[in-house]
């Protein structure tokens, strides 16, 4: 990939004074504390809008998984109950979350990437996996599973079969983590190109689970470019990790601990 892909643009409504950004919660029934922290945060946030930049769910095999009583349905209820405007971008884990589930729970879908025009700024929002171009095999896999034909074919399998496939991939993924794979970071020259193409000076993304603010030098007009990386969320007996990035009109971006 050598250029900014087609991107969405979203003009923030005037009443949005505070906007939150979260990503990489990887919600799953086996991690109840992460779910609880997320549910509490969405119920309590004073933000006018919450942008969820991918990997909200650890896995999603189809909207029919959100049957009454399911974990997915409980997550849907948390989304529906949130008083803030909710916007969702797919990640590399939850790329099968469908328009039906989102609409039913009052969540608006975002293209990846999307330029948000808010607080007098243009912010380029992306999950982050598209920018990890070093991983050629992953990009090929991504292109395959994001294709409408592939998804239609996968979703045509009975739900039980899809869940079995997901469980198998989960086992393999856990073994993969035990295999200690070292992961690349985003391609920064490409990130600069994307910012130039979007006429934006700030990029916000997740995916790498390496929260930090990176300066990417200056653009052709001498404006400072920044890449802001969101934290993942993970809470269990040994770990407490969660973070919200908050944009307030007239103020700088701040990172908050929602716990």
């Amino acid at each position, binding site marked *: 990939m050598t250029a900014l892909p087609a991107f969405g643009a979203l003009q923030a409504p005037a009443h949005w004074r505070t906007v939150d950004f979260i990503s990489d919660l990887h919600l799953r029934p086996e991690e109840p504390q992460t779910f609880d922290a997320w549910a509490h945060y969405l119920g309590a946030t004073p933000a006018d809008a919450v942008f969820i930049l991918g990997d909200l769910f650890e896995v999603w095999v189809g909207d029919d998984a959100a049957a009454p009583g399911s974990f997915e349905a409980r997550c849907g209820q948390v989304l529906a109950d949130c008083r803030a405007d909710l916007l969702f971008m797919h990640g590399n884990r939850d790329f099968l979350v469908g328009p039906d589930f989102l609409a039913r729970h009052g969540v608006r879908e975002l293209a990846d990437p999307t330029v948000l025009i808010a607080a007098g700024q243009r912010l380029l929002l992306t999950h982050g996996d598209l920018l990890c171009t*070093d*991983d*050629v*095999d*992953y990009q*090929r*896999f991504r292109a395959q599973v994001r294709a409408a034909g592939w998804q239609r074919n996968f979703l045509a399998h009975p739900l039980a079969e899809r869940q079995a496939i997901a469980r198998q*991939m989960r086992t*393999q*993924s856990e*073994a*993969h*983590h*035990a*295999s*200690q*794979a*070292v992961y*690349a*970071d985003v391609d920064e020259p490409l990130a600069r190109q994307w910012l130039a193409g979007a006429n934006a000076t700030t990029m916000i993304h997740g995916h790498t*689970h*390496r*929260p*930090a603010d990176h300066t990417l030098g200056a653009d052709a007009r001498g404006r400072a470019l920044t890449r802001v990386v969101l*934290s993942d969320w993970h809470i269990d007996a040994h*770990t407490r*990790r969660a973070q919200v990035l908050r944009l307030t009109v007239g103020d700088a971006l701040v990172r908050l601990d929602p716990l």
Partner: protein
Amino acid sequence: MSNPQIELHITGHGVITIELDAEKAPKSAANFLSYVQSGHYDNTVFHRVIKNFMIQGGGFEPGMKQKPTQAPITNEADNGLKNHVYTLAMARTSDPHSATAQFFINTVDNDFLDFKSPTAQGWGYAVFGKVVKGQEVVDAIKAVRTTRKGFHDDVPQDDVVIEKAVVVGA
């Protein structure tokens, strides 16, 4: 005492000579040496190769069968050594102190892998040696064709096998 040197003999590619930094990374150097001397690295593959990033190996036999390892070691990434091109570092899971046998050779400067802070996300990857001979072998390995095998991405299509790892002058 000079730093130990190890040769990795790669079938069909040549020899990579590594010098360990026993002063700045004593635990990692001793750990690596122990795996070399026990023959652990013999008949393992470079199973994860990403051209402009790094080449990773030391954990799997051909056929992606994982070899058993010893206890994990403390992360020594706060030793001041940087993940520059041709340096050798320990691979690990997201647990900062989980490194066992797997290692990687940086094929570009990878600043983002350096130690930032003693937190789960900031620990980075411990550099404990560098390639002193055979950089061209590293360059050849980094460019091999890779594919997705099962859930592993970036696996060389044709196995890149460490036939044997030996201590130089032993």
